[in-house]
């Protein structure tokens, strides 16, 4: 991971501050308030699981971080720098396209419905962005793609097209594709929700492997409580557009303080 010498140094020291910080973020769709004065901090290298009922704003958090949605109020900081605003001559103005693209390069996302490029093989899917965006040579991009696809267990399916792969395999390709851009933050948006149950495990194994082997901050929206319990450093329970309760998994899953958290976890248990 190269450091860009032209990065503006924010007041907070880059090396010690949080990797991601949401400050009083608000987002509404018309009259529906989706994120309500949200404050959230994620430390470097931390693995955070986000749980909660639908409509609580979980996915919106990830989408805003990935700049797929705009925030109405508040600020988001990534790697010490503001995301949706930028520093121009000491003043804070709305980000221009160039700033957004630079910041976006630090973040990667894996989607619920994979969104693989159907007209490209698995390897090509992983090579595309490193070539066109990072300017890697074809050889370099291919080497990186092969390495990552082996890592996710698909070293023998390099030239298969998405239509020839199972859901679990496609999702693993999607993970490799995102990692090929060497992001500092990886976002996982309900990545197993669209999979048949027997395919969920292979994807979760890959995520475990990434958590262990790579130095990357991870935010994961998930319904897989068992996995979250074992994998996350911290669990955030979202309700009504803000964090209702958060803490280490032992605390949240075993002895939650908030009544709503308890209700939610009880309902989840009843479903299994």
């Amino acid at each position, binding site marked *: 991971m190269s450091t860009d010498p032209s990065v503006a140094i924010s007041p907070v020291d880059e090396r010690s501050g949080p990797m991601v910080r949401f400050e009083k973020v608000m987002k509404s769709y018309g009259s529906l308030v989706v994120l309500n004065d949200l404050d959230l901090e994620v430390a470097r290298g931390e693995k955070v699981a986000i749980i909660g009922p639908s409509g609580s704003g979980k996915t919106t958090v990830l989408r805003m971080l990935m700049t797929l949605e705009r925030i109405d109020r508040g600020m988001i900081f990534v790697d010490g720098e503001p995301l949706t605003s930028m520093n121009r001559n000491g003043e804070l103005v709305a980000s221009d396209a160039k700033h957004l*693209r630079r910041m976006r390069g630090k973040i990667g996302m894996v989607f619920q419905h994979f969104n693989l490029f*159907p007209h490209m093989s698995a390897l090509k899917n992983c090579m595309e962005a490193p070539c066109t965006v990072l300017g890697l040579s074809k050889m370099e991009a291919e080497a990186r793609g092969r390495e990552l696809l082996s890592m996710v267990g698909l070293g023998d399916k390099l030239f298969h097209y998405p239509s*020839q792969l199972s859901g679990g395999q496609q999702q693993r390709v999607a993970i490799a594709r995102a990692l090929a851009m060497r992001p500092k933050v990886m976002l996982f948006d309900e990545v197993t929700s669209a999979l048949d149950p027997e395919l969920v495990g292979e994807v979760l194994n890959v995520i475990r492997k990434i958590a262990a082997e790579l130095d990357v901050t991870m935010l994961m929206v998930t319904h897989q409580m068992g996995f979250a319990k074992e994998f996350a450093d911290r669990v955030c329970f979202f309700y009504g557009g803000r964090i209702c309760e958060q803490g280490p998994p032992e605390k949240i899953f075993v002895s939650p303080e908030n009544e709503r958290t308890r209700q939610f976890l009880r309902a989840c248990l009843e479903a299994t």
Partner: protein
Amino acid sequence: MAHRPLVVCAILAFTAGLVIASFAGFREFLPGLLEGALVTIEITVGGSVLAVICAFVAALSKMYGAWPVRGLAVIYIEVFRGTSALVQLFWLFFVLPRFGITLEPLTVAILALGLNVGAYGAEVVRGAVSAVPRGQWEATVALNMSRFQALRRIVLPQALVPMIPPWGNLFIELLKTTALVSLITISDLAFKAQEMNATTYRTVEIFSIVLVFYLAIAVLITVAMRSLEWFAARGLARGPAQ
């Protein structure tokens, strides 16, 4: 949709057979009509190429361009869709010289028809590009691709195959519209037909044969489009992506 070319081919074969069997004078018309058919095909091909270019430029400008470019695209599309092809043809033929631009009739024909069909084609392009799933766009954002890169490498390739059948229909429309160029004295198939009719007055034979010729070219276009679709779909390894 699948039975359409079959019905058409059957009629084609039947009428061709009827014509050859019944009309003794068939042979004397043939050379002149074939000459005309070549001109018709020339204009059809030239006009089609121009139409595709205009359609892509206009549609992409309208969807993703800055407002001046978008405005021009909208004006182009509305004007050429809202006015008659013949009016456009005559305007370019009679009025353009007054601007100091004198073109060969053949060039005027290709220009007018290409611009006309291009305006309708813009809607086809727009529809196909809009139909590419949103998730594809979001994946390109997640991978930090620029809009241009996303369009060129990811979205447009996926939009191309669904575009082929409607374009096939538009090319056949263009073929039919080429008949108008006979009215600006270009020696195409329609012109030859009128010429021969004026000298021999064997209306039924001449025009029947000419109609069959046009039909034959239309069938060729349909067959070409079907083959293109088959090749393209194979090359892109289509199938349910998720």
